[in-house]
């Protein structure tokens, strides 16, 4: 139980920091809405909804990257990861808490993005929402680990997308598939398997990312 208490303590801290600093969520919201507006004008009138769904996923992935780049900003700028690593809690709790906070930020951005997409392009069905929910989990578990790795680098703004985008390809395939294919259940399955596999890998490997 103490593991989840630690996760709750750390996630609460991240949410409180965002509530005070408002560094991440407003930027994500503005970006995703601006991207959808640009896509709305860039896509020809007669384009199929398939193309629009593809662009939705592009907007969501890049919005997530925007948040992930800042995920460890406070820890990086003030050397705080040392203090968290020294605490007697399981180090994977730091990753899980950060991933949960990122998930909350991403969901907030999508609460605006999905209705905006419905206004600019076409309605959102249940399969798309399920796809987005499963994709969010994958984005946050993988993205948070990579954000911690990139945080140690000087070129973190460049490094994170370079590391994250190849690993996000299955998420985009699963998400677009769930959105546009008639019976998209198997794509949801793909996303669920991806989430499960990467959650285990990231949970087990985070300790080695934050310690020498």
């Amino acid at each position, binding site marked *: 139980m*103490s593991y989840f*208490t*630690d996760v709750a*303590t*750390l996630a609460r*801290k991240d949410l*409180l*920091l965002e509530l*005070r*600093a408002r560094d991440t969520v407003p930027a994500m919201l503005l970006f995703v809405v601006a991207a959808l507006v640009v896509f709305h004008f860039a896509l020809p009138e007669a384009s199929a909804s398939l193309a629009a769904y593809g662009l939705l996923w592009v907007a969501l992935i890049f919005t997530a990257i925007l948040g992930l780049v800042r995920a460890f900003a*406070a820890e990086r700028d*003030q*050397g*705080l990861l*040392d*203090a*968290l*690593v*020294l*605490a*007697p*809690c399981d180090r994977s709790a730091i990753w899980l808490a950060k991933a949960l906070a990122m998930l909350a930020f991403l969901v907030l951005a999508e609460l605006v993005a999905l209705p905006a997409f419905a206004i600019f392009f076409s309605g959102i069905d249940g399969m798309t929402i399920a796809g987005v929910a499963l994709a969010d989990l994958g984005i946050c578990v993988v993205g948070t680990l990579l954000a911690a790795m990139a945080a140690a680098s000087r070129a973190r703004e460049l490094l994170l997308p370079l590391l994250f985008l190849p690993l996000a390809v299955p998420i985009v395939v699963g998400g677009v598939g769930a959105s546009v294919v008639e019976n998209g259940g198997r794509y949801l399955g793909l996303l669920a398997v991806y989430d499960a596999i990467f959650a285990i890998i990231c949970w087990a490997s985070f300790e080695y990312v934050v*310690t*020498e």
Partner: protein
Amino acid sequence: MIRARSLSKRFGDKRVLERVDLDLDRGGFLVVTGPNGSGKTTLLRLCAGLVAPTSGDLRVETDRGRIGFLAHDPLLYRELTALENLDLYGRLYRIPEHRERSGMLLERFGLWRNRNERAGSFSRGMMQRLALCRALLHDPELLLLDEPFNALDADGVQLLQRELEELRPGRTFVVATHDPARLEPLASGSLALA
């Protein structure tokens, strides 16, 4: 408590520590001196387990949860208040009555009045006092202090000297400083890094 044999650390091509031997018994007070870049901070980070030695052997006989670490950076969230910062660490270190202990430390270090102010609004000296509260919060048995007198005013220096005297019995200290004279009465040994 701490035993090091031929302890070396490199960062890439840069040699930071070279073949350092160290014996510090439980209850000892080691003052580490040396010019900038001589490896004082790296030695403390090695003892804390934050970095691994490149070569050599290092044994620290305590759990990481029993280490109090005062670093160059205060290791505090600037957007959280003084009390919220200590509350966070109190929970992570599972201190049963962390609120009472936080209050007591803030009082002792002259920050009780500022407990609900964000750490980011503190002066460097106040930040250092709060960082000391954080390092002492869980009643550590091994204290690794990197330039503890940094940024403290005359009152702060006196206060810290008194605190160190009070804390001295039963605890082990490794203190990196440019001003060893202040710690002379407490020191049981010294290590000069070149």
